[in-house]
């Protein structure tokens, strides 16, 4: 009930702020997004469908994006869970460095990331001759697209999990271990259920970023129509070929996926907030259980995990 007092104190400021915020959001987000859909459907839904389904290069681009993004997200999910567990449960030399390194993709321009991959995997690159003699293609082929996408989305899952895992703490996992659970059982029955909403949140964000990735993918794709063009690259290519409606049709699919992501994100965030409240409530309960471990070896472990 404290909010209305602020607004009623400065009605003019309040009005101006609301107008400015709505204006900016409208101008920068709603209008451009609406214009994408308007342009995409300018020639009717039949033309929209034709642009998407009857152009083999566009079809391939959609298929490629729907393959590359989940692959990159899958790699990041495995990596993210493992890394988040490692840094939230253990203290070891280089731990802060590892966390910092996980953030590098946030600060490095995607174009630089792409060029770095070319420098390593390109024909003249570090691993180029080896890959060539094995007959493997990484750059200018789909593995390069997966690598580039994985790089730019790397922090999203792990960054989402670290704070949640730290908040939950190791107690439940330790309890499971003390009751004789195997590592896999601890992971599937204790850790995973605890982090599932945060994990899903990270996956949704990573997937959205992966689908829309342009810069890094642009450098390593080679621009081969019907082979290495992902959806965002196809949008640009169609636009440059003066096929604006077709270009916007593909863009509308990307925008549609973004909207679905947004809804998923909101739903998941509500769950996350609810779980945080539950955790808080559980914490504030009077401690009725004696959590002092009986086994002395166990308490050493606890020290190692929580210090």
């Amino acid at each position, binding site marked *: 009930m404290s909010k209305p007092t602020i607004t009623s104190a400065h009605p003019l400021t309040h009005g101006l702020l609301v107008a400015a915020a709505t204006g900016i959001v409208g101008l920068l987000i709603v209008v451009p997004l609406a214009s994408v859909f308007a342009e995409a459907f300018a020639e009717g839904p039949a033309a929209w469908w034709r642009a998407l389904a009857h152009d083999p290069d566009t079809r391939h681009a959609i298929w490629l994006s729907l393959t590359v993004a989940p692959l990159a997200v899958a790699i990041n999910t495995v990596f993210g869970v493992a890394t988040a567990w490692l840094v939230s449960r253990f203290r070891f030399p280089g731990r802060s460095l590892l966390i910092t390194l996980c953030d590098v993709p946030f600060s490095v321009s995607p174009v630089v990331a792409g060029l770095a991959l070319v420098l390593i995997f390109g024909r003249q690159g570090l691993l180029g001759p080896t890959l060539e003699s094995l007959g493997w*293609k990484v750059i200018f082929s789909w593995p390069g697209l997966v690598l580039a996408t994985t790089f730019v989305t790397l922090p999203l899952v792990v960054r989402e999990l670290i704070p949640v895992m730290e908040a939950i703490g190791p107690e439940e996992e330790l309890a499971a271990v003390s009751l004789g659970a195997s590592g896999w059982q601890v992971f599937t029955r204790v850790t995973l259920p605890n982090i599932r909403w945060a994990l899903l949140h990270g996956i949704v964000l990573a997937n959205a970023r992966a689908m829309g990735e342009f810069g890094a993918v642009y450098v390593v794709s080679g621009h081969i129509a019907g082979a290495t063009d992902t959806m965002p690259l196809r949008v640009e290519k169609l636009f440059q070929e003066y096929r604006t409606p077709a270009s916007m049709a593909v863009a509308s699919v990307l925008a549609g996926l973004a909207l679905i992501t947004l809804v998923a994100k909101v739903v998941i965030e509500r769950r996350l907030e609810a779980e945080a409240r539950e955790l808080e409530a559980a914490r504030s309960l009077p401690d009725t259980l004696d959590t002092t471990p009986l086994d002395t070896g166990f308490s050493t472990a606890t020290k190692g995990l929580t210090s």
Partner: protein
Amino acid sequence: MNRSFLTPGPSFQPLAQAVVVLLAAATVGCSGSSSTPGAANRPAAIELLNVSYDPTRELYRDINAAFAKHYEQEHGTPVTIKQSHAASGSQSRAVIDGLDADVVTLATWPDVEAVAKSGLLRPDWQNRYENGSIPYHSVVVFVVRKGNPKQIRDWADLDRDDISIITPNPKTSGNGKYSFLAAWGAALAAGGSEDDAQKFVSAIYRRTPVLDTGARAATATFSQKGIGDVHLTFEQEAHLEVDESKGGLEIVYPKCSIRVDPPVAVVDQNVDRKASRHAAEAYLGFLYSPEGRAIIAKHHLRPWGDTPPPPAAGETWPAIETFDIAFVAGDWNNAMKKFFGEGGVFEAIYQPHTGN
């Protein structure tokens, strides 16, 4: 008990195994994608990759369809041609870095020569096809807004304070290089000295508000974003841009301009590895055939050879005096070093402007 929790022991094996299986699957996937090259000399179906520059998309769409039909009739082998288009310099770099091109059809001689220098082409690539492996040429022309409101007629008009010019970055774009060289050559052709030429070209880039990386991006800047009064570009690109504008733009032919000579080459190392040499050579040869020349002309590129076919029945090629790279800078090596290399003229005249 606690040890097995702290240090992943036997109980973690299923997880570790899952990770190993996933990594292995990814590795196998990498190798699986490139299993096409075989021992056979003539594969059942051939796929060629033509790595080209920006303004040839429409041309090669038609050439590819016609050639595929022609080749299958002649040799009984179906052939599909994949296309890659971007700024010419970037494309050259990509082929050097491993983009698997069977043929390169790039905007400028240095772009193909760079691929040759990397060892992918034999040094004599220029002598493989007629006219120094240049099957068609173009000229740099002006595209202006409808009715030519700023009265831009010739090169001298670009040196006016009320004119804003669109041309891509000569460092990355072949189109950009040619525009630069055309302006320089036009100043020389008008009787100016090297100093006059440099002053004229500096004035042009001072009036260039955006330097896009490729020809198509520059076209979009001029025609779709509506920036600038005049767009310097290749004749065929100008026609496309004007057709697309549905009356909003028109072409102006300056009195003289540079002859644009985009060379083509078979990428020897790649075609030998992929066993696609026969089709790749036939593909470039097709550009010199009557059918190929007619398609080239239709796209407003001037085919090489005597009596070039007109762009359309009843039309003629507009007359324009041309000079070549030799007139502007002796040869391409010289031009690259003098104008576009590190510490070259372009850096000297453009660098101070970027801060504005």
